[in-house]
């Protein structure tokens, strides 16, 4: 019961704020809608029994990525000669790009829908019972074991990737120092 309620709330939050991201023309509000979308997806993870992934989603997206985005929005305002304020954020696209976006969406919808219909046709969509419910009681131990046994190479590589991203981001975003004399 609880999971059903949580599923419907999270699904509504996810889709509604996903649509808000598309529709809203203020970049700051768009970012807020994205925050709602992330929280909704975290709720969906919880309904899937993936508590750990939900917490990681919260930690990384809500605590990290959204704040980074907000910082980037604040650091890149309009052109200096134009007015700066909460109502005058940079251009968000015009009718032509929106039309192209909708056409792409239609194409994607048709192709993905065909794949999904094929899947549901062979009864995959109705599959409800988890294969082994006890596996999803507490996933933390299992994830830790898998990360350091089967997936240890990817784990180490991702640490190198993060280090590279850290250094790269710090160097790229560093303000231009005065040129060498």
């Amino acid at each position, binding site marked *: 019961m609880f999971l059903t309620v949580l599923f419907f709330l999270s699904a509504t939050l996810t889709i509604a704020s996903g649509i808000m991201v598309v529709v809203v023309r203020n970049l700051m509000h768009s970012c807020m809608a994205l925050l709602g979308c992330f929280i909704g997806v975290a709720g969906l993870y919880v309904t899937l029994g993936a508590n750990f992934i939900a*917490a990681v989603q919260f930690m990384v997206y809500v*605590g990290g990525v959204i704040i980074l985005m*907000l910082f980037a929005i604040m650091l890149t305002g309009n052109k200096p000669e134009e007015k700066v304020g909460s109502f005058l954020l940079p251009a968000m696209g015009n009718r032509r790009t929106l039309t192209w976006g909708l056409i792409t969406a239609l194409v994607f919808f048709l192709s993905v829908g065909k794949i999904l219909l094929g899947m549901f046709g062979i009864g995959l969509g109705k599959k409800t019972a988890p294969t082994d419910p006890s596996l999803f009681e507490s996933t933390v131990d299992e994830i830790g074991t898998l990360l350091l046994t089967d997936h240890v190479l990817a784990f180490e590589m991702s640490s190198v990737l993060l280090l590279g991203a850290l250094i790269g981001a710090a160097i790229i975003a560093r303000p231009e120092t005065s040129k060498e004399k």
Partner: protein
Amino acid sequence: MNGGLIPYLSGFDWFNQTIKSTSAFLSFDTTSLLSFLIYAVFASLLVFLVLMPIGGLGTYAERKISADLQARIGPNRVGPYGILQFLADGIKMVLKEDIVPVGADRFVFYLAPLLAMVGVFMTVAVLPLSSGLTMVHLDIGVFYLLAVSSLVGIAVFLGGYAPNSKWSLLGGMRGASQIISYEIPVVISVLAIVLLSGGMSFDVLVGSQGGLPHRWFLFHNPFTFLAFFVYFVGALAEANRAPFDLPEAESELVSGYHTEYTGMRFAFFALAEYVEVFVLCAVAAALFLGGYNVPGELLKDHPLGQLLQLGAFFTKTLILYYVVIWVRWTLPRIRVDQLMTICWKYLTPIALFNLVGCALWMYCFDGKSIVSLLFESGVGAASGGH
């Protein structure tokens, strides 16, 4: 729904009777629905009756203790020793006009205080008040707590951005950068404790300690002793408390990110801050100071034992709370560059060193604490001497 409340209630006749009659009325099995509703009501009551007063009494304690430290009297008009001052403050907050500044981003302006409240009160769900009174026994307890409390950073940032005021903006930017920076040493020092106890659930974390100080993780080994101080300094900074209260530095920024907020919206921010300090102190008590463990495990299976555990937990937490207030009225505020230096050049390397040290300690001494090592070697030497 593993609160232990529903199994307890299902022992009563009236509960089963209610389930039967509502099931007949609504024509489906309402057991899970009813338990969900009862649980939700219980949780909300706990939040409103216990934690709102803690937030309110926090303001009272802060004023009274600061008055003591400065040889003043402090609030003494409302109630005995002015203890009802927080109710008077609350009523005043409700009655104040709700002002939205011209040029504010209204949607975000309304959203920010709510996010702060939600982020802090969500953490309360996993707090181990006693072995029976933990609302959710979550398997990722402490990680959930740290993850959810990151909503406060966004709230601070948005509270700075929304009112379109320069003071707020500076405070909000400072606050967000401070919170996400200090999250790193805090998380790493918590990770050292998780490594020692072998689980992220608060049941495991508290359960692997004991009632007396020599079985606390604080005195487990030298690295955890350091980790406690790293955690505590980081927690002070995360809750924007002095000496790290740069986001709301009165002398430079009026009042930082909540400058433009009035009435209840301001009260939400203030309440969130005080409850967050309480939560961080509670986590420190649970992770390092033995949590709700009572010395000698007195009355462990008796209902009164729960009261003793609550007493132990609240004593430790409130002592830490007192230290937080004491630090605030003793130390001067540091500069922004010093803030970042402390975080990135001192606390983070120390926390990493602690993590590696704890791992080595686990490997070399098989997870025994320093006290048990000394004691056992002493016994071994004494018996070997004969």
